[in-house]
């Protein structure tokens, strides 16, 4: 605590006029621990930084406070100065006196600026250094799946020198890859043989992954091949297990004759129709063909590609009469509109109809009745072959795999949670990636891009053979940990495992490699055993000590640095004003805000506490904002049961580009919270 703190105040070229910098500097100098105060007008420019550097050295500064613009703006630059001065870059605390003070309020805000500085000084005194280190990683990659995406990922990874194991349940490589050949003219055979002769690719067929332990850079995978059990280690795991198709309707037994034979009424799948198309010994070419898509599934991009391609191929090969029944032409993919037009121009008849057509068997042929939207009339026709509507569904193994790997699925059961921050190919766990049909129904063009994305992600993780990490940024104190498993259950990134200490006590071990430093675990640990450097209880409480001193009553907003904090900055830039007595504490994720921190804020005099995180469904740490919401609810209950009037706590969700929502939330909250009656 006796660290020498250097305060660097910047008046931003003299433009910050509603803060009296002489008063502010004087008050800063009087704060405990402060060894020097420097006033600058261009701290972020080279000349300002040079002066800062020399002052740090001259005054033997051990912790730095920069009171200037938002840390969102220049924090990385000031960290660089600390590094250059030989200080640990984490011993920096910033007071945002521009965006969240000067610009956000009218009139003189010197008092607020001083308070923000005091918060920062207190924080700087309690911060602890974080060391950086490089940890070794296993450079081999496991690719689960044997289709188009899987083989291509393996081939591309091989090209950048990474060894892969292609693991697939089927006995032959490339099952499922024909589809891409059919629709996109890829040469699957040469792709498969390239994989087979590639030295960097090991192919394990008829094999299954049965257990996975560990984390990025060091996954331990149990593979069962027949009766044999193989244990292997990988640095990353890529899931490329594809999807499966099913007919949208089972048509009832009387309509099904099955097989690919053409005689009599025939209802076939796209796949069966494809084999008819390539069958050189077809007895009789169908004269009238009907195809269907987009009635049972809004996500019918694959189905649209398949239908259009097959219709066109049949037209070209047999010259049959072809009718395509559909509701909406799903043409939002590369080249799809062109394909749709080509099919039309070749004479394929498209029948737009809002309801799924009625199917019946009449005189040995398949009868179809539908209301043509354009004509406004019912039409009925009979065909030799009906290619039924197909649904694209998650592959069979999806459910087992996501449990095995502890990763989420989306609302339709495909791999990858519907969180935009995971797109295109990421999962919530570092080193586990998704690609291809298993992610859901996307176009083949985007699958190609996704394959390259996977390669890039794996390259960044593994190619160097080591990953730089912040050492023990988040750590469970083995002395305090009671191994209750809470953190292991709540960690959204699968970064915590039960480990043994040197004296063999079981404790929670947080992997520096897999940890994203969100702090969700620290906020829930019932033993308060997890300390998160930069956001420890001490660091937060000491800031709260300074809150509301200068003003009569204040409000505290815990703002997620990925959303609410930048939104507050934007509000400042737009000069959207809100009450001066708001104090913002920047947190890595709303999920890091502890119930205890909220209560502490009330104890220190806050009338209202706002917890502000990302929009629901868009948390960078998946569950952080929903947990925050639950905690706020719990906290509200705790307040209600002690009947403290006039204290309010609420959760707000917003995105970083929603400054109006930020200001709206703050105003609403402050309006409804009564002044503290103390």
């Amino acid at each position, binding site marked *: 605590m006796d660290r020498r703190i250097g305060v660097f105040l910047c008046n*931003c*070229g*003299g*433009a*910050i006029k509603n803060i009296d910098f002489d008063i502010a500097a004087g008050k800063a100098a009087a704060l405990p621990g402060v060894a020097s105060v420097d006033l600058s*007008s*261009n701290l972020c*420019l080279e000349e300002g930084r040079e002066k800062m550097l020399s002052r740090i050295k001259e005054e033997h500064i051990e912790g730095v406070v920069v009171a200037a*613009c938002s840390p*969102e703006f220049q924090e990385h630059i000031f960290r660089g100065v600390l590094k250059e001065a030989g200080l640990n870059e984490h011993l920096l605390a910033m007071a945002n006196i521009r965006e969240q003070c000067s610009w956000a309020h009218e009139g003189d805000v010197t008092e607020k600026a001083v308070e923000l500085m005091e918060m920062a000084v207190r924080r700087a005194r309690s911060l602890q250094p974080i060391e950086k280190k490089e940890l070794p990683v296993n450079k081999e990659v496991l690719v689960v799946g044997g289709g188009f995406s899987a083989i291509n990922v393996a081939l591309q990874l091989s*090209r950048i020198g990474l060894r892969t194991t292609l693991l697939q349940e089927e006995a032959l490589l490339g099952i499922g890859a024909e589809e891409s050949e059919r629709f*996109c003219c890829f040469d699957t055979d040469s792709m498969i043989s390239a994989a087979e002769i590639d030295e960097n690719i090991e192919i394990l067929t008829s094999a299954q992954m049965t257990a996975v332990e560990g984390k990025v850079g060091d996954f331990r995978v149990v593979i069962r091949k027949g009766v044999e059990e193989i244990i292997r280690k990988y640095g990353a795991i890529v899931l490329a297990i594809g999807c499966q198709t099913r007919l949208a309707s089972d048509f009832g037994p009387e309509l099904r004759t099955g097989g690919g034979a053409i005689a009599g009424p025939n209802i076939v799948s796209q796949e069966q129709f494809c084999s008819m198309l390539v069958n050189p010994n077809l007895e009789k070419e169908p004269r009238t063909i009907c195809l269907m898509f987009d009635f049972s*599934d*809004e*996500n*019918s*991009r694959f189905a649209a590609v398949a239908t259009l391609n097959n219709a066109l191929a049949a037209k070209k090969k047999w010259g049959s009469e072809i009718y395509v029944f559909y509701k*909406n032409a799903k043409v*939002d993919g*590369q*080249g799809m*509109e062109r394909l749709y*037009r080509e099919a039309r121009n070749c004479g394929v008849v498209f029948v737009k109809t*809002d309801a799924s057509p009625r199917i019946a068997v009449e005189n040995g042929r398949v009868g179809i009745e539908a209301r043509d939207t354009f004509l406004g009339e019912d039409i009925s026709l009979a065909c030799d072959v009906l290619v039924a509507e197909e649904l694209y569904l998650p592959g069979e193994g999806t459910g087992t795999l996501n449990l095995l790997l502890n990763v989420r699925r*989306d*609302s339709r059961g495909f791999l*990858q949670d*519907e969180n*935009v*921050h995971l*797109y295109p*190919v990421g999962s919530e766990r570092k080193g586990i990636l998704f690609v291809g049909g298993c992610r859901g*129904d*996307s176009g083949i*063009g*985007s699958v*190609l*891009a996704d*394959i*390259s*994305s996977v*390669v*890039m*992600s794996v*390259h*960044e993780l593994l*190619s*160097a053979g080591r990953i730089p990490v912040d050492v023990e940024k988040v750590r469970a104190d083995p002395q305090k940990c009671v191994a209750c498993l809470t953190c292991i259950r709540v960690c959204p990134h699968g970064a915590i495992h039960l480990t043994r200490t040197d004296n063999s006590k079981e404790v929670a071990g947080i992997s520096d490699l897999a940890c994203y430093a969100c702090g969700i675990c620290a906020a829930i640990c019932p033993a308060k055993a997890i300390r998160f450097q930069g956001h420890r209880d001490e660091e937060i409480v000491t800031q709260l000590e300074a809150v509301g001193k200068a003003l009569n009553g204040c409000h505290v907003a815990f703002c997620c640095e*990925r959303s609410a904090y*930048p939104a507050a900055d934007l509000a400042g830039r*737009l000069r959207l004003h809100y009450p001066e007595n708001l104090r913002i504490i920047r947190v890595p994720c709303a999920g890091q805000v502890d119930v205890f921190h909220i209560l502490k804020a009330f104890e220190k005099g806050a009338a209202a506490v706002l917890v502000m995180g990302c*929009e*629901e*469904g*868009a948390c960078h740490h998946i569950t952080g904002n929903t947990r925050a919401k639950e905690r706020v609810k719990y906290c509200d209950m705790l307040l209600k049961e002690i009947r403290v009037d006039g204290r309010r706590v609420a959760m707000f969700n*917003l995105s*970083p580009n*929603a*400054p*109006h929502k930020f200001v709206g939330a703050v105003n609403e909250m402050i309006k409804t919270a009564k002044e503290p009656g103390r």
Partner: protein
Amino acid sequence: MENKSVLVFGSGVSGVASALELANAGISVYLVEKEAVVGGHSASFCCKATDVCSRCSACVVLDKIKEAVAHPRIRVLTYSTIARLTGELGNFQVGIVKQPHHVDEQRCIACGVCTEVCPVNPKAIHPPSAEATPFSYVLDEGLCLRSKGEKCDVCRANCPTQAIEFALKPKEQELNVGAIIVATGFDVFDARMKGSLGYGRYSNVLTGLDLEQVFTREGRLRLGADGKEPRNIAFVQCVGSRDEGHGYCSQVCCKYAMKLAGLIKYQSPDTRVTIFYIDLQTAGKGFAQFYEKYKQSIRFVRGVPVEVLQTLPGELEVKFEDVSEGKVCRDTFDLVVLSVGISPGRNSWDLARILGINLTDEGFFDVRDSIGSNETNVDGVFVAGTCQGPKDIPGSISHGIAAASKAMQVLGQSASQRRGKQGSH
């Protein structure tokens, strides 16, 4: 000399994604942008979340820009364009022209002194939009007294960081890079081209992009000087997509229209929203559920309007063919939003000529295979994002990363091949 740095031209979301991936992989990147700010179109998109995230990805773009601008291996060159290209894969010489812009973004600290002292009104020097990166002030030459022959020097003289300079000429420099990624994005279809829809004539006919900006600026749908909120809104799909001049679906319009409509319904549930469409594009991760949620509260009409007429001030009559009903109808609205599509960039022709790369019939950059990879006909020149064809934000990001991946792979290969050759001598 083998050069392993990469030039990314265009700093929209795909360019930024490319640059970031390369930089994270240890490769130096020049991120060249012709405008004053990084981010392209999508950086100004609004958040469309209702009570939950609507997955518009606008915030992802801001994340990426912030990361890229702060990245030590990325050098951002704004106001710059490619003028010349010589050399080959592994060793390109690129002539870059930087337009004069009077405010040095390296030195501007956005303090606002210049605006304060500027004697003209509206101010000739002003802050960029709030979300702009770099957040550096902009001098509007047309408004500046100097353009009228006067010798005003107030802003330059008062700038505390000496960031303003008047006597600037275009600066040329040559960059030596191993590969080039073209990520110049798209132009928004000019809705004036569809004269009968009234854009440019009626103040309450807007484009989807205009609407995005209203939300960005105001946080709500407030129009005009009086900030009135429209109560009855029509969205018109496929304006500049899937027509004679545009043989493609822009892929983004159905989604942004529905998401904006969802946002409007969320903010003011009583507002009526109608969407006129040809085919609804509802595929895509997480989108079908969004559609299901708003299917009931938004009126969907199959049929695209042919004419928009102002009958009374503030009232627009839309003439359309309701395909499902099989008749021509009229309806009045107080706001018509044209869901304009993605058009190829205006400057694509020039750039294609300079770089020697091919264009498709539609005017996008062509790639070697037809399904949208990144390789152009010139080795070492890759394309990323919507300059290759319409894409949404996640699609652009993925395509950008893919371009980075390809560039990295060829640079790695050409280096090793070079080493191989040397070994054989």
